[in-house]
């Protein structure tokens, strides 16, 4: 469980009727500074009725009410997008009456309403209750839905694996060698242009859409993100986030001394990036000849 008392993990779920507003919804969530998007992923639904029941299985409203309220979902696109966030401002309070009284995060509740007001279908200029988005009331619901999606570790999935190195949920042996590597020996793995025939291609950093973006060719990166976000790309990347990184990036500075680019050794002194292609592209563009990397053993 998330042991940092001041934070909690929450999720938003974009229903099929809101998928065409995905970018707008993500922008609204990104603008909320107390939320940090951790994962974005698409989920295809085999049985909508069953799925809706699972999502609302921890809800506080009476079952019949939920059944009526979610009827419209049975005819929506059987695809949803999950956006998991770290909520740094829980701001919890009680909502509902009597046996339906429950705790919610005001931050999440407020944002959910903003999104619904903006994107829920309107009839006679009034917002309908056919919601485009659902959000968790508490961390247990986030834990439950992750387990339902097949992540048995629940919210522990988001806890950093290492106390020292800033790496994301990587199952490793916990042995890293931190050393300088010549930039020319570093390769990256990107989604193949032949996808879905071939999933990934190993190439030089300068051939990646990430490097091209830093170099001024922004379209290929934008196209790459738009095409694969939520499926093969699940981190919170978009041009605006990348622009901010480019502007403020200082590799391994005092405040981020262990934010290493994570690599793994291949043959012939070559290394492949496991985490940090955006950062490596910036360093490559700055013409750095060597970088300090944590090499996974």
């Amino acid at each position, binding site marked *: 469980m998330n042991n940092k008392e001041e934070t909690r993990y929450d999720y938003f779920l974009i229903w099929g009727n809101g998928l065409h507003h995905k970018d707008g919804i993500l922008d609204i969530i990104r603008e909320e500074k107390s939320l940090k998007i951790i994962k974005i992923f698409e989920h295809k639904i085999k049985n909508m009725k069953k799925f809706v029941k699972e999502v609302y299985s921890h809800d506080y409203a009476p079952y019949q009410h939920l059944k009526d309220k979610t009827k419209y979902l049975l005819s929506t696109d059987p695809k949803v997008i999950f956006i998991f966030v770290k909520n740094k401002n829980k701001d919890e309070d009680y909502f509902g009456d009597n046996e339906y009284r429950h705790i919610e995060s005001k931050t999440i509740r407020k944002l959910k309403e903003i999104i619904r007001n903006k994107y829920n279908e309107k009839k006679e200029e009034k917002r309908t209750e056919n919601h485009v988005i659902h959000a968790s009331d508490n961390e247990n619901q986030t834990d439950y839905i992750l387990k339902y999606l097949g992540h048995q570790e629940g919210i522990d999935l988001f806890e950093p*694996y290492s106390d020292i190195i800033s790496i994301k949920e990587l199952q490793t042996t*916990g*042995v890293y060698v931190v050393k300088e590597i010549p930039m020319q020996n570093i390769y990256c793995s990107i989604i193949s242009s032949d996808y879905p025939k071939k999933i990934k291609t190993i190439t030089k950093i300068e051939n990646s859409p990430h490097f091209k973006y830093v170099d001024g060719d922004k379209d290929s990166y934008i196209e790459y993100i738009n095409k694969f976000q939520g499926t093969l790309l699940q981190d919170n990347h978009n041009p605006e986030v990348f622009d901010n990184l480019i502007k403020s990036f200082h590799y391994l500075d005092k405040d981020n001394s262990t934010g290493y680019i994570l690599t793994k050794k291949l043959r012939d002194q070559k290394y492949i990036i496991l985490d940090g292609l955006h950062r490596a592209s910036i360093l490559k563009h700055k013409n750095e000849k060597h970088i300090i990397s944590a090499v996974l053993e």
Partner: protein
Amino acid sequence: MNDKNLKKIFDYIQNDEYIVIKLDENTLGDHGKDVDIYCKNISIIGKKIMHIANSLLKTREYDQIKLIENKNEKHVYIDFYKNNNLNFRFDLFGKSPNFKNLTIKKEFFSDCLKNRIKKTIIKNTSTFNIFIPNENHDLLFRYIEYTENHAERPEKIKHLHYVSSMLTDKNKIFIFLSSISLYVLKKDTERKNTLYIKNCIFSIKRILKKLLRI
């Protein structure tokens, strides 16, 4: 690790809560040696050591730093390598280790941090401060080290010799023995085994009774 680099690291963590345990001032920094550090927050201390390590990699004073981490045990080795040889190791503990023969109350480690003392190290041209446990806690650490490891590593007798050499008067002996009774519990595996066997016999008897009733 030379005195200048030791100074850089210990100066950088001077405002953090840690203690160097079983300090041997004479060999601190020597080739192939290690230093054991118990940290209140292993993440902060580990990241700060790595910050200095990054600068030492850039100046080519070391060619690689190996980080071996057991997150569940909150135990990290930070190994400094020069020409592919282990030069010096920082052995960081973020919680009480699991001991084989003893059970140490968790209050022991927080009390050690609370009552730590500052020690000034003068090494070659460098002077820096480090935090160590107070004398009584230090003796307890050495006693634990001896009890845990002397069966496999007879050289650990040195810790017992050290403890006995430091217990020079009745008052010190009294405080030391009181601390043992306060913090150290002997693992009662024998009792556990007896209980386990008793439970097994009880279960078998119950099953037999049921079977006989049928």
